[in-house]
């Protein structure tokens, strides 16, 4: 129980800075206990400091869950892009672009009888699209239609 520090000023249990001497699950139990404690305290008409403490606690929890999520994401990213997987991914992206370009050009030529110009132009376009795909897959170029991020509101779901 080393993590339960009694705040000298108020005599409350101080849970805003979780210590790392206890197991993770146990910490959440303690957090939950603290929340209940604070609810009890709220009934004692001390809203200001309580509010502050609750906010502090929420911030700590949010930071914790966010960081653990980010860690998870990074781990997955690393797993997904091992050398072998990465090679397949990037080459697939590039080949996809070229193949679609050639296919479109061939189709265009058949449709309008412009052989070989459609094939030439669409092959070049496909090459460019393949390079774009690779750069996108490697994270060097912004994703599809991500222009809105620059002028804010990246998380706005209503933006169209």
């Amino acid at each position, binding site marked *: 129980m080393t993590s339960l520090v009694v705040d000298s000023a108020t005599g409350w249990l101080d849970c805003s800075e979780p210590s790392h001497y206890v197991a993770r699950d146990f910490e959440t139990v303690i957090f939950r206990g603290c929340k209940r404690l604070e609810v009890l305290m709220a009934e004692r008409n001390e809203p200001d400091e309580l509010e502050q403490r609750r906010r502090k606690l929420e911030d700590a929890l949010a930071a914790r869950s966010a960081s653990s999520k980010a860690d998870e994401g990074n781990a997955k990213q690393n797993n997904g892009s091992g050398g072998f997987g990465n090679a397949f991914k990037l080459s*697939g992206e590039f*080949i996809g672009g070229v*193949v*679609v370009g050639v296919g479109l050009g061939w189709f265009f030529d058949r449709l309008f009888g412009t052989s070989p110009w459609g094939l030439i132009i669409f092959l070049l376009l496909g090459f460019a*699209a393949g390079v774009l795909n690779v750069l996108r897959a490697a994270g060097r170029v912004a994703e599809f*239609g991500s222009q809105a991020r620059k002028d804010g509101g990246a998380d706005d779901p209503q*933006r*169209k």
Partner: protein
Amino acid sequence: MATDPIHQFQIAKWIPIEVGGLDLSFTNASAFMVATVAAAGAFLFLSTTNRGLVPSRAQSVAEMAYEFIASMLRDSAGTHGMKFFPLVFSLFMFVFVANLLGLVPYFFTVTSQIIVTFALAMLVIGTVIVYGFMKHGLGFLKLFVPSGVPAVVVPLVVAIEVVSFLSRPISLSVRLFANMLAGHITLKVFAGFVTSLSALGAVGVAGSILPLIMTVAITGLEFLVAFLQAYVFAVLTCMYLNDAVHPGH
């Protein structure tokens, strides 16, 4: 014949069916697709029939699969994207179980057929296009027009973006197909070394230990690839669906 690494991908007609000149035979590929769906469905059904507050082992695996896909979809497409959860979950389970079944010796690997993976990818892209136009009308086309580009080069950029968009089903299907095909061929080739080397006598038997170790190691790797490719397929599906839900976001 036994060591031909390509032989395992041959389609065999089990029940020939022909309707109006179309070959609709029930092949080994069809049989294993049915088996995949049956296995995935049976697992999810049986593991959730005796639901408990404290989950059993099977139930927690099923719940993990659900949570995994649900959080993936929520993270990349937002809560609006959750209406596609059944699609993404079915795709993930199908690809994953098909990959795993393919690892059983003498089983056919459905996902090593480009037409199967291409059909799955077309399903995804078709959903994106249809839903995108249904929801946003012509506003969906904004996806292809990046802002901040000088007006002179906009037609060129749009053409490149359109080709890039159309190449998505290709790269999505080729990635899964190529991974499964290459993995199974490698496995077969290394396993073939073991038999052909050990036919050479005592020295060969000693030498065949190396490819045997490789075969075991690659089998382990293939299990990882089976999961990873299903995961990648699901992640990319989520990303593409995100474009349909919020184009220009």
